[in-house]
């Protein structure tokens, strides 16, 4: 219980910094390819649509994509940071909750690594906070790499059939008498 983060601070910013510094310590940053240049326009240049008037194609990926995507070391660090910064509070372990699911390969604002990075940095209008300036860039790339790793590699536009389950209960029903000793039940 010695971590300074255990002490609650009324000042939100200070608390956030506290978490940030602890998380920074957690993730050794020496290996982060922070020397990679951002694209000229930075994350703001990332398109979140596949529609380009007059023809065209998505802009080339940010150079960080190649460095981070699929890298187990960064994904692992990203997983730790995902919990540290309370990402898991909204997105659970990828299934979602207050925020959308991240493991279903459905992306409102694009599922390319630099698009995910942009969503974290900028925030999104329906409740995603803007983390730019709150989390170091390299850590946001690591979180992005972890988030991308959550979904299966199947094509995003692949059709999917969900079979209707048989009428049996979804889960095997526990025994009528609870296995847990000491269960109180309704008085007779």
């Amino acid at each position, binding site marked *: 219980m010695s971590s300074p983060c255990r002490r609650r601070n009324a000042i939100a910013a200070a608390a956030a910094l506290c978490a940030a510094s602890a998380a920074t310590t957690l993730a050794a940053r020496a290996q982060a390819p922070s020397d990679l240049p951002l694209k000229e326009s930075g994350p703001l240049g990332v398109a979140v649509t596949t529609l380009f008037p007059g023809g065209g194609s998505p802009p080339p990926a940010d150079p960080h994509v190649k460095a981070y995507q699929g890298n187990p070391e960064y994904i692992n660090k990203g997983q730790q940071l995902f919990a540290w910064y309370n990402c898991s509070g909204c997105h659970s372990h990828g299934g979602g909750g207050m925020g959308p699911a991240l493991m279903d390969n459905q992306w409102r604002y694009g599922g390319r690594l630099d698009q995910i990075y942009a969503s974290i940095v900028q925030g999104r*209008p329906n409740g995603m906070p803007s983390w730019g300036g709150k989390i170091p860039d390299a850590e946001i790339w690591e979180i992005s790499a972890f988030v991308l790793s959550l979904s299966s590699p199947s094509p995003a536009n692949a059709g999917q059939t969900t079979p209707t389950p048989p009428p049996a209960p979804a889960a095997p029903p526990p025994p009528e008498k609870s296995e847990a000793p*000491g269960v109180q039940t309704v008085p007779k």
Partner: protein
Amino acid sequence: MTLETSRPTSTPCADARNWRTAKRDPLRPSGGEGGTQPAPSLTLPRLRGREGVGAGRVRWAGPEHMAASALKSPASPRPSPPPGVEREKEGRTLRWSQMAGTRARAAARLLCGAAVAALALVPGFVAAQTPQPPASAAPADDGQWTMPAKNYASTRFSELNQINGTTIAKLRVEFTFDTGVNRGQEAAPLVVDNTMYIVTPYPNILFALDLTKPGAPMKWSYQPHPEAASQGVACCDVVNRGAVFWDGKIIYNTLDGNTIAVDAENGKEVWKTKLGDINRGETITMAPLVVKGKVLVGDSGGEMGVRGWIAALDAKDGKLAWKAFHTGPDKDVLIGPDFKPFYDTDKGEDLGVKSWPPQAWMTGGGTVWGWISYDPDLNLIYYGTGNPGPWNAEQRPGDNKWTSGLFARDPDTGAAKWFYDTYPHDEHDYDGINESVLLDMPVNGETRKVLVRPERDGYVYVIDRATGQVYSADPFGPVNSTKGIDLKTGRPIINPDKMTKLGQTVRDICPTASGQKDWEPSAYSPRTGLMYLPHANLCMDWENVEVNYISGTPFVGANVVMKAGPGGNRGFLTAWDPVKRKPAWQDKEDLPVWSGALATAGDLVFYGTMEGWFKAVDARTGELKWQFKTGSGIIGQPIAYKGPDGREYIAILSGVGGWAGAIVAGNLDPKDPTAALGFVGAMSDLKQKTMPGGTLYVFALPPT
């Protein structure tokens, strides 16, 4: 056709049966200050009777059975029952309602006749036995529905009886209205002056429908345009639990923390007061209550490390009259010389600071997102406080006052009168926000002013509403997180095996974080003396994890996975007898019952299921009398009203969501059982049963 309404005292037949059941099984002597309540039996109750219309229906040994036993008592001064109405057969009681056809009806007539005769001999006897809400808090029904709980006693009981066990076969859809918002519809419609008002989940649109015209066309709609980002700090879907009518205004809250009054006639905004800050994680989902011209509002955000509060606004202009926090120093909690809690552990200076680690109270939760009741005679409001933050209790040693408990306050000043700490140092997210039904009922042989609360922790509490003393607390489903409630100290007897721990998964804790019963409000019928509890039957695995406070983000610190409870069915509608302290009957449901209940003088109970069935069951037996499949799962609050044509109408919003339905409303991924704070674990099949929706359904009998 004229619609008849009936007051409880005008129904001698029904009351006779209550009279027959009342007082035969007086409260066990464990009540009062004296001793520790013995732990109830560890075995599940024996199922009784035959299977009803609804599959999986369960019947407990009910009041009739108890009455039959009592009738054999030589000490009983009551007259004998009509012959053949009840009889012992092979050790089981055959209930009159189970008899077929004419014989049952004949028996019922006999019973009525005998009861009426008995009543004539003992005037006033019935009223003294069947618990009744105080008249000041539950005035005679005018056929409208002006607040979600129907009245200040929170009975959700309609005196309309046109729709009853005989006529209900003809019940049909009268009109529908699509809200255009496909998120969890938890609100109760209001009906005032032949206009229906409904509030949607975010974006919290208010619709007014003209009930005097065919199809109930829209009169107007009001769009408050709440901040879109508020959706990201709403813990459990973007729900709204309804509006309230007061003095020509419809008053309700928006997800982004505003309280708004709208002119009921023309839909114009009268005032708007910002109370919550989404950047601190504050949202508002509860339905306000207006007491003596003050609008009572509390915040949501117990999963975001907010500091919970309740506020009173002047209904005329929205100006803040008072605000009480639920953590921190006494002056912030509005604890002063009038504060007289019943139990010693709630006495002391600044417990809202001292029962926390340093500064932890500042992010300690204690929100108010449920129900408020009001006793005009005692001039006290009653409401519960939400869970402490974070869920990980190891980060906040202490009792964590004044979270997960029950306050009584003076509505004029906000001054606290008493507090009962339902769940000190809450380890399981057992918010105390559920409804308090105000009743005057016999306790240990004396009529007491009590409130009856079915709590998240799995107990039905009977509490003296003048003093805060707990008279009884009985489980209404399987509970192993505690071993009972110590009535001497008022504290739960914690089961050490189910205490939550850092880095260790504690398995099969019952009930879940969502509780044996969550927000979904119960109904009480003064005719049957039964309280109808919609609730869940779930257990959970829980692992504490360390969590940092970052304002505007979740402050939870637990990995939770929920699952079906004993028996496998995930829900129940339980008819609870508050005097006998046990169920009269229970109806099983596959899914958690996440809708409110409505009881009517037609002796029917209405509720909805998360598959989308809207059901009516016999208030005395639980027998399914009628059902209709709506377009989406139901988590709303049914109401009854008298239309301009004199007919009785039943209204319900259909649209799955809320915490239990978040997997559908939020399109969550069933592969992650920890999703939606663990609820997805118990609801992984919901996407195969229902889709999101948002439609009002209104039912009535055909015109005659």
